[in-house]
C-alpha cells in the first residue's frame, strides 16, 4: 500500500495527475486481453489483505486488538499519503455512526465494547478507503470480475457483481460529498444545529443518486 493516493482524493494537487499514468501500464507492453500478472498482483494482494483484515476484525475480540488494527490501518493510510483533510471529511458520516454506535454500546455493554465497536467500524471503512485510493478502478474491476467468475455457473454476472463492489467501495466519499452539500444548504437557512434537518434530505439524495446512477449504467448497457 505504498503507492501514492489515487488523484480522486485530492483535486487540488495537479502533480498527482501523472501518478495514475505511472501506475497504468502502457497498452503496448501488455501481451493479451487479460491484465498482466505484474499489474494485478498488487491489487490481488490488497484485496486479500482487506479480506484478512475483515476476518481479523471479527475474530479478535477486545478493545486492545481493535485499537491495534486501527493503528495498523492508520499507518497504511499515512504511507499511502491519503490527504488528511479530504479523508476526514469523507469519513465524517462514518465517524458520526461510530460515535452513535459507541454511545449505545457504552450504555448497554460498557466502555470496552464501545471502543471495540467504534474502532472496528473505522478500521474497515478506512481500509476500504486506502484500497480504493491506491488502486485504479479499472484494475480493481478486472481483478474482482476474475475472482467472482466461478459464480457465473450459478447465474451471477461477474462483471455486474464486480462493478457493484467497486461502486460500493467508492461510496464513502460520495456520501460525504452529499452530506456536506446538504449541511451547507441547511446552514444557509440557519438550520445547522439539528442533525435531523439535514440527515433526512441527505439520505433521500443518496438514495436518489444511487437510482440515477443505476439508470445511467443501464442506459450505457453496462448492466446487460
Amino acid at each position, binding site marked *: 500500500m505504498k503507492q501514492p493516493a*489515487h*488523484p*480522486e*482524493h*485530492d*483535486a*487540488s494537487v495537479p502533480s498527482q*495527475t*501523472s501518478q*495514475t*499514468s505511472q501506475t*497504468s501500464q502502457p*497498452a*503496448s507492453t*501488455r*501481451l*493479451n*486481453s*487479460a*491484465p498482466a500478472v505484474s499489474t494485478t498482483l498488487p491489487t490481488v494482494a490488497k484485496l486479500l489483505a482487506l479480506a484478512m483484515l475483515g476476518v481479523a476484525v471479527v475474530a479478535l475480540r477486545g478493545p486492545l486488538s481493535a485499537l491495534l488494527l486501527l493503528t495498523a490501518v492508520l499507518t497504511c493510510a499515512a504511507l499511502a499519503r491519503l490527504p488528511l483533510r479530504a479523508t476526514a471529511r469523507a469519513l465524517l458520516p462514518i465517524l458520526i455512526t461510530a460515535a452513535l454506535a459507541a454511545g449505545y454500546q457504552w450504555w448497554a455493554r460498557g466502555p470496552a465494547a464501545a471502543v471495540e465497536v467504534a474502532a472496528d467500524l473505522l478500521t474497515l471503512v478506512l481500509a476500504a478507503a486506502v484500497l480504493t485510493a491506491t488502486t*485504479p*478502478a*479499472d484494475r480493481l*474491476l*478486472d481483478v474482482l470480475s476474475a475472482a467472482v467468475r466461478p459464480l457465473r455457473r450459478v447465474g451471477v454476472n461477474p*462483471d455486474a457483481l464486480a*462493478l457493484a463492489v467497486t*461502486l460500493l467501495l*467508492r461510496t464513502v466519499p460520495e456520501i460525504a*460529498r452529499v452530506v456536506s452539500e446538504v449541511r451547507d444548504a441547511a446552514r444557509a437557512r440557519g438550520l445547522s444545529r439539528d442533525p435531523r434537518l439535514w440527515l433526512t434530505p441527505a439520505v433521500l439524495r443518496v438514495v436518489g*443518486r444511487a437510482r*440515477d*446512477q443505476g*439508470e*445511467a*449504467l*443501464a*442506459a*450505457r*448497457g*453496462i448492466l*446487460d
Partner: protein
Amino acid sequence: MIELRGALVTADPPRSADERGRRGRRAGTAAEPIARHDGPLRILGPIDLTLTEQRIAVVGANGSGKSTLARLLNGLTLPAAGQVLIDGLDTRRDGHAVRRRVGFLFTDPDAQIVMPTPVEDVALSLRRTGVPAADRDARAREVLARVGLAERADLPVRALSGGQRQLLALAAVLATEPEILVCDEPTTLLDLRWRRVVTDLITELSQQVVLVTHDLDAAARADRVLVVDDGRIVADGAPEATLATYRLLMGVDDEVRRG
C-alpha cells in the same frame, strides 16, 4: 431507423387519501385487492412516428413528455402498449441489442459518470464493447481527445467543470460507437460557452441524433423538429414552421408583441 407504433406510456395514478386510509385499516388482514376506479395515467402517446432524418430535435414545455419520449428510444422506459423499434429491434424484446445501438446522454453528467477519473469512466464503457483490457486505456484516451479532454484524462472527475463533465459523459457514450445518440437536454445545466461547445460537438457527430432541448437555436439547426405538449406530438416537420407553432403554444410571440 426509429419507429414508434402506437407507443403509449402510462403510470399508476397516486392513491387518494381515502384509498390510503382504507389500505391502512386493512393492514394485517387477509390480502384483499382494493378496487381502483381510476385507470392508469397517460404520460405519453399513443405515438406513431418514423424517424429517419440525421438530426431530430424535440422541444416542449417542462413535463410535456419530451424526456419520456427520449427514454423510450433507448429502452429505459418501455411502452405500456404499442412498440418502439430501432432498426427493426424491439426495445422490449431486444433491449440489450437496442442499447448497443442507441447511446443516451443525460441532463446531469454527474448521474452518468461513475468512475473517479475520465479515462477510467470511458474505459468502463469500453468493457462492454469487447475492447481487450490491454487496449482500453489507449482507446479511452483517444475518445477523450475527440471531445477535447485529452489533457484532463487523469484528473479527478470533480476537478472538471460542469461543461467538461458533460463532455466526459458524451465521450463515455461515444466510446461504444452507437449508431443513434439520444440527448436529453444535455446543455440545460451549462453556461452559454459550454452550451455552444457541447451543441457544436453533437452537431458534428456522424450518428443520427435525437436532441431533446429547450435551446431553440439548436433546434432550428435540426432536419426535423417534434413539438411535444401534454404527452402528444402537436407539431412535426421542418424547424421554421414547428418552432413557430411552439412559440405560439408557449405564448412567447404574444409577449414579444406586447414587449
